[in-house]
């Protein structure tokens, strides 16, 4: 009797958990632990010297700052895009829908070169911005543009299906109860899609942190100003400073992990608020 009491309704828990751990170990944990092992070949003083170098510190600030900012911009505009694609029908809608995935498919270097070309002093857009003293290409602003570009699909594609499932009935109900359009969007629609929006934000952020290809073409890569952390790592690798590269990588890994953990906790919390089960 006691044995049957502890039995789960869904079979295969042991097997699937074992598989999950093995798979995660092979694909994620073991390669990542190599980063720590390699870093450990340095003495603590050496590690500290590497990771606290002014150039490295400036790059962390730039990478994570620009990534958070880009993910935020994407969350706002991606939401609007998803909204339009779900709620309205207009000529060329399918085309717009397909365009959204393009940043996924494009080799990031291509994106970087294209962006650098149009935002440069003599580029299509750059030539109009230049007279107003606005420089995009080869500045941190250029990095932001590139990160927004590559992160856009994540928000749109996570929010879109949830928005599709959200019946217009909820908004009608809010309106019949006297809510203004603004109130029904902020009090009814947004809370319902918040978990999806957070996921989209987290994905766009994670993608932006790891982005290399598109950024280096448009960033200008000036130390202390527009040099991203992945570039520092590459530079160190090219100088055969493997331990130094992994030390910086470790810092990136830890910050990324901490931030994603926080975002996931936030997301779980908002999802739990959405449907509390007894």
């Amino acid at each position, binding site marked *: 009797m006691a044995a049957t009491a502890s039995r789960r309704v869904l079979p295969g828990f042991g097997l699937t958990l074992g598989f999950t751990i093995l798979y995660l170990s092979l694909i994620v944990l073991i390669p990542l632990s190599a980063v720590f092992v390699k870093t450990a070949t340095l003495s603590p003083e050496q590690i500290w010297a590497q990771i606290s170098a002014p150039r490295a510190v400036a790059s962390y600030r730039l990478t994570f700052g620009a990534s958070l900012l880009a993910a935020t911009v994407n969350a706002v505009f991606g939401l609007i895009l998803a909204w339009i694609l779900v709620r309205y029908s207009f000529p060329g809608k399918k085309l717009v829908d397909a365009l959204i995935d393009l940043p996924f498919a494009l080799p990031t270097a291509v994106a970087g070169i294209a962006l650098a070309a149009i935002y440069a002093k003599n580029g299509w857009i750059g030539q109009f911005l230049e007279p107003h003293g606005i420089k995009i290409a080869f500045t941190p602003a250029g990095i932001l543009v590139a990160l927004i570009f590559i992160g856009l699909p994540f928000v749109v594609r996570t929010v879109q299906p949830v928005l599709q499932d959200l*019946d217009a*009935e*909820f908004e*009608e*109900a*809010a*309106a*019949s*109860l*006297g*809510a*203004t359009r603004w*109130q029904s969007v902020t*009090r*009814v629609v947004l*809370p*319902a899609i918040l978990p999806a929006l957070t996921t989209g934000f987290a994905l766009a952020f994670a993608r932006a942190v790891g982005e290399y290809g598109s950024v280096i073409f448009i960033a200008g890569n000036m130390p202390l100003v527009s040099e991203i952390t992945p570039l520092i790592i590459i530079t160190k690798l090219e100088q055969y400073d493997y331990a130094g590269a992994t030390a910086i990588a470790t810092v990136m890994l830890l910050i990324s992990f901490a931030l994603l953990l926080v975002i996931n906790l936030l997301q779980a919390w908002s999802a739990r*608020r*959405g*449907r*509390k*089960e*007894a």
Partner: protein
Amino acid sequence: MSIRVENIDKRFGAFTALNDVTLDFRTGELTALLGPSGCGKTTLLRIIAGLETADSGRILIAGEETSDKPVRERQVGFVFQHYALFRHMSVFENVAFGLRVKPRRERPGEAGIRRRVMELLDLVQLAWLADRMPAQLSGGQRQRIALARALAVEPQVLLLDEPFGALDAKVRKELRGWLRQLHETLHITSIFVTHDQEEALELADRVVVMNQGRIEQAGPPQTVYEHPANAFVHGFLGASNILRGTIRDGLFHAEGASLPARNIHQSGGEAIAYLRPHELAIARRPDPAGIPAEIRRILAFGALARIELVTLAGRVPLEVELPQRDLAGLALNPGETVHLMPQGVNLFPSAEAAILPKPVLAKAG
């Protein structure tokens, strides 16, 4: 508040949902909009609420033109078929929603909101569920919470779209009685949409029967049931036996019998008779006003026994309902020939048969 609907037209592409509908709903009355699916009843309800706009016509609430008012200014409580409770809010917050979104100068304080919400939850007898989330409620409970939420803003009229549509039979019956009681306490002018004739007849003060975007008949349940205006209404409200025949000498001749009828509008020609199963008496003795028929099956369970027969002349299937006691007295057997004496025959011109909903006759709409 009284509601007046004037010459409402509504088309969706090539489909005509409402065709020149004019109706009055009196203050404090509970009205049922009854009809088969696609008859335009829900569309009419949504137009009154302002969730849909009519192509032409006017809506007057308490004598005031409201056609151009947005939903949120109409003071109309709307209960959706699937309740549309906000999933991320507790039951309490759902009911409080209408109060919280009021402009600041009209909004009651936190204590006021709390008092009003608890009052409403008491009214629907679910105060103990205040802190639950909608996902934790049963269908019937959700329905009542949706109603409490709609009542929170003190609507002038209450509109319910298929209020019992998504519930199982037992809960449906319970809620029906409960809603009638609630209406008696509140006396808000209410309209509900249903395709269930039993629900409409049992619950409403007035029944409006709709078909293909038009109103077929409007009146108290008793009148609509006993004096249907046309073949459609008769066929839609309750079971009917149908006989085709001709009118001659003030009598309806069909299946070897000459029947007196309630309503002979024509002096002669073809007509269709509608006979309710409980309005047919069974006799053994032949009679000029008795339809000879053979018994096929006797279903003797429940308070009413059902007997299935076919007429001897034209092999037309008929159904008779009679109380168990009477059945026992008659001692009928399958295969036996009896004579059916109609107690009330409703005649309609045979052309109307084309729009019949239930017994599928030759012509399809």
